[in-house]
C-alpha cells in the first residue's frame, strides 16, 4: 500500500468530482504511491476545518472562506491548484423573465444561499444595484421556487439547475456567471496546510498528477464515465441520467486551461486577489503556491 492521503471533497458525489473518481478507479493514485481516502462533502462539512483537525490532508475549498481563514484566523493554508478556473456561481433565472444583466434584478426577488450572501451583495454593488432595490430570501438547494415563480432568480451553480428547471417546468433558464459580471474567481481550489506542503510534497505532487490525469480522461471521453458511474459513484445521488450528462458536459469549459487542469497563472491569481479585495478580504500572492503545478 502507498502512503495514506485523505482527500476532503466539498460536496456529495456528483459529476463535479468525476475526474477524481476516474483516477481512483484506474488506480492512478496507487501508481503514484498514494493510498487515497476520498471523503465526500455535505452541508455540515467545512473542508478547511477538516484540514485544521487533520481529518484530511488535502481538500477542495472556496476562495473567500479560505482566504479569510488565512488573513483573519491565522490559518496556514496554501491553494495549490484550481479545479474551476471560473466558478460556476451564477445568478439563474427563467428566460421569460428577461433578466440579462445584474441590473435587471432591480425590483425582483432573488433566492440566495446565506453563505453566498456577502459575495452576492458585492456583485450587486459592482453592478450598481443597492440591496434595497431587490428582495433577497434564503435559498436551500431547491429549484422549485424558481420554477413556480415564487422567486425570479436564484444564486447557485449553473451546472445542473438550469437544466432541471427546464426539464421540470418546460421553461428555459439562463444564467449569469459571477465571473462575467465583475467578480472573477475560481472554485474547488485544491488546498493544503503549509505543514503538509512541506512534509508531504511528493504525495501531493502525486495526487495532483493523478487527478489531472483523471480529468484529462474525462475531457477526452465526455459522457462515457458519467454513464458508467451511474450505478457506482453516483448511485443514489438523485440525479437523472440526463441531468448528470448535462452537468458533466457543462462544467468542462469552466475548468479547461491551456496549461492543464488545476493551472493557476499569474493573471488568474491577480483576478482572484482583486475579487478578494472587493469582498473585503485581505490576501496576497502568498495564498497561492504554484510550485506543485510546476512540478507536474
Amino acid at each position, binding site marked *: 500500500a502507498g502512503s495514506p492521503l485523505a482527500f476532503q471533497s466539498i460536496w*456529495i458525489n456528483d459529476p463535479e468530482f468525476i475526474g477524481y473518481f476516474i483516477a481512483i478507479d484506474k488506480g492512478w493514485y496507487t501508481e503514484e504511491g498514494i493510498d487515497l481516502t476520498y471523503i*465526500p462533502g455535505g452541508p*455540515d462539512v467545512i473542508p478547511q476545518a477538516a484540514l485544521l483537525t487533520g481529518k484530511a490532508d488535502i481538500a477542495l475549498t472556496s476562495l473567500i472562506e479560505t482566504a479569510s481563514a488565512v488573513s483573519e484566523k491565522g490559518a496556514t493554508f496554501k491553494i495549490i491548484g484550481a479545479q474551476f478556473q471560473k466558478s460556476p456561481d451564477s445568478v439563474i433565472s427563467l428566460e421569460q423573465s428577461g433578466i440579462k444583466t445584474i441590473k435587471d434584478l432591480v425590483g425582483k426577488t432573488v433566492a440566495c444561499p446565506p453563505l453566498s450572501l456577502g459575495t452576492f451583495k458585492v456583485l450587486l454593488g459592482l453592478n450598481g444595484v443597492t440591496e434595497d432595490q431587490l428582495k433577497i430570501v434564503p435559498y436551500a438547494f431547491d429549484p422549485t421556487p424558481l420554477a413556480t415563480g415564487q422567486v425570479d432568480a436564484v444564486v447557485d451553480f449553473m451546472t445542473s439547475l438550469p437544466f432541471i428547471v427546464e426539464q421540470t417546468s418546460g421553461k428555459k433558464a439562463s444564467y449569469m456567471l459571477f465571473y462575467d459580471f465583475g467578480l472573477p474567481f475560481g472554485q474547488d481550489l485544491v488546498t493544503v496546510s503549509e505543514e503538509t506542503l512541506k512534509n508531504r510534497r511528493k504525495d501531493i505532487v502525486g495526487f495532483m498528477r493523478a487527478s489531472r490525469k483523471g480529468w484529462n480522461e474525462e475531457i477526452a471521453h465526455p459522457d462515457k464515465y458519467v454513464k458508467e458511474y451511474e450505478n457506482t459513484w453516483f448511485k*443514489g445521488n*438523485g440525479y437523472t441520467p440526463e*441531468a448528470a450528462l448535462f452537468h458533466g458536459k457543462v462544467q468542462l469549459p469552466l475548468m479547461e486551461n491551456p496549461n492543464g487542469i488545476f493551472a493557476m497563472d499569474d493573471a488568474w491569481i491577480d483576478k482572484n486577489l482583486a475579487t478578494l479585495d472587493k469582498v473585503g478580504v485581505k490576501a496576497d500572492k502568498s495564498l497561492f503556491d504554484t510550485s506543485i503545478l510546476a512540478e507536474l
Partner: protein
Amino acid sequence: MKAPIYRENARILFGTLVALAVWELLGAYTSWGVAMFPAPTRILAQAFVDRELYALHGLATLKTSVFGFAIGVSVAVLAALVFCRLPGVELAFRGVNITLFAMPAIVIGPLLVLFLKGDWPQIVLAALMVYFPAMSATLLGLRTVDPRIADLVAAYGGGEGALMRHVRLRGALPDLFAGFRVAAPLAVLGAVLGEFGSGTRWGFGAFLLSALPQGNPARLWGIGLAASAIALAGYALFLLPARRLSASSSAVTLAAVQPSARPKGGASTRRIVLTLVAVALPFVIWWLGVTLSHVSPIIAPGPGRTVMFLIEGKQAAAARAALGHALGETLPIAALGLLAGLAFAFVLAALTLLAPALARGLMPVALVAQNMPLVAVVPVVVLVFGRGTASSVFMAVLVVFFPAYVLLHQGFTSVPRAASDLVAAYGGGRWKQLVHIAVPWSVSYLFAAARLVAPQALLGVMVAEWLVTGVGLGNLLNVSRGGLNYDMIWAGALVSILISVAAYEGVGLIERRIAR
C-alpha cells in the same frame, strides 16, 4: 360498547380517505400542487421507480436511527436512575443536560463530522437528540411515587434502594415508554439531519439532499413520508406496551397526597453550590475537550477565548451587536413558538380526552408533520406561511408540540380511576374531566413538557431562520460557519444555550411557585 368503536374506526377510515382524495385532487389539478404538493398516486409511482434506492437509503437510516436510539436511550435511562437516586448530581449536571439538548444542530453537526468517522456523526446526533427527552420522561416517572407506597416501603426498613427496585422502576415504566415514544421519532430526525449534513452516501438524509436540487417534489415527499413512516413505526412500537402498562400502573384509589415528582429541596447553601457547579460544569467539559483534543482554536475555541471574543478587542463590540441583533429577531419568535407549540400540544392531548376519534385521526397527520424532514417541508411552508414570522413560528411549533404532547398525554392517562368516576357520577363530561381532573392531576407533566421543549423552540426557530427567513441567530450561525467564523458560532451557541437554561429554570421557578 363494541359497536361505537367500529363506527369510530369507520369514521376515521372515511376521514382518511376523504383527506387523501382532496390531496389527490389538489396535487394533480392545481399548478402549485403539481409543483410542490404532488398527489399521493404520483408519490407512490415515483417511490416505485425509486424502490431500490429506498431500500438502500432506508436501511441506512433505519440502522442509524436504531443505533442512535439505543445509545441515547441507554444513557438516558442510566442517567435518570443516577439522577433519581442522587438529586444533587442531577442539579449539578443540569447545565450539561440542557446543553446537550440545546446545542444547535448547526454547531454540533459540523463538529461531529470533524471528529467522528463513518456513520458515527449521524448516530451520535440521533443519540444526542434522544437523550434529553428520554431522560426527562424517565426521571419524571421514577420520581413520581404514590406516597402511600413510599410509607409502606419505609415501614419495612426499605431505603431508597428497595424503593427504586420494587416501586420506582416498575412505576416508571409507562413514563419510560412515553419517553421512548418521544425518542423514537427524534432518533429518526437526528439520523436524517445527520445524514443530510455529514456527506454520507446512504440514508434518507443523503437521499433528500441529493434529491433537493432535482426539482422532483414527488420524490422529496416520498422520502419525507418514508422517513416519517420509520419514525411512526418507532412511536407505535412503544405505544402498544404503554397502553397495557398504563391500565395496570395507575392507582385505583386516590392517595390523599398527590404523588409528586419534585425531589425534596435540600439545604439552600447546598443548592446554591450545586447550581454553581451546574453552570460551571459545561464550561469545564468544554475546556477539557478543547484542551485534550488539540483541535485548532480556529474551529474549537475554548470558553475563555469565546467569552473574550464577546468582551475584548475591537471586533467584540461588532460581535455583540451582531449577536444582539440576531437575538432580538429570534427570541420573541421562539417564545411565541414555545407558547404556540405548548398550546397545540395541549389541545391535541385534550382532544384525546374530548374527542378521541378526532385525536386518533389527527395523530398520524401530526406525527407525519413532526417527522417530515424540515428541509422537505420548506417549500410548502413558504407557500402557506410566506417567509416571515408565521413560518418561523410554525417550524417552532412543529418541533415543540410532539414531545410536549406525549408527556401531557402520559399525564392524562395516569389519572386514577376514582377521580374520573367522581366526575362521571355527577354527569360531568369529558370537558369537566379535562378541566377539573386531568389538568390539575398532570401539572408535573405539564411543567416537565414545558421544560423539555423550551430549548426545542429555539432550535426550531433557528432552523426556520436558516432555511426560510434568513434572519436571526440561525442565519448568523449559518453565515458564520461559511466564513469559518467559529468564534461567532461558539459565542452564538453559548448564548443560545444560556437562554435555554434560563428558560428551563424559569419554567421550574413557575412550577415551584404554583406548587408553593
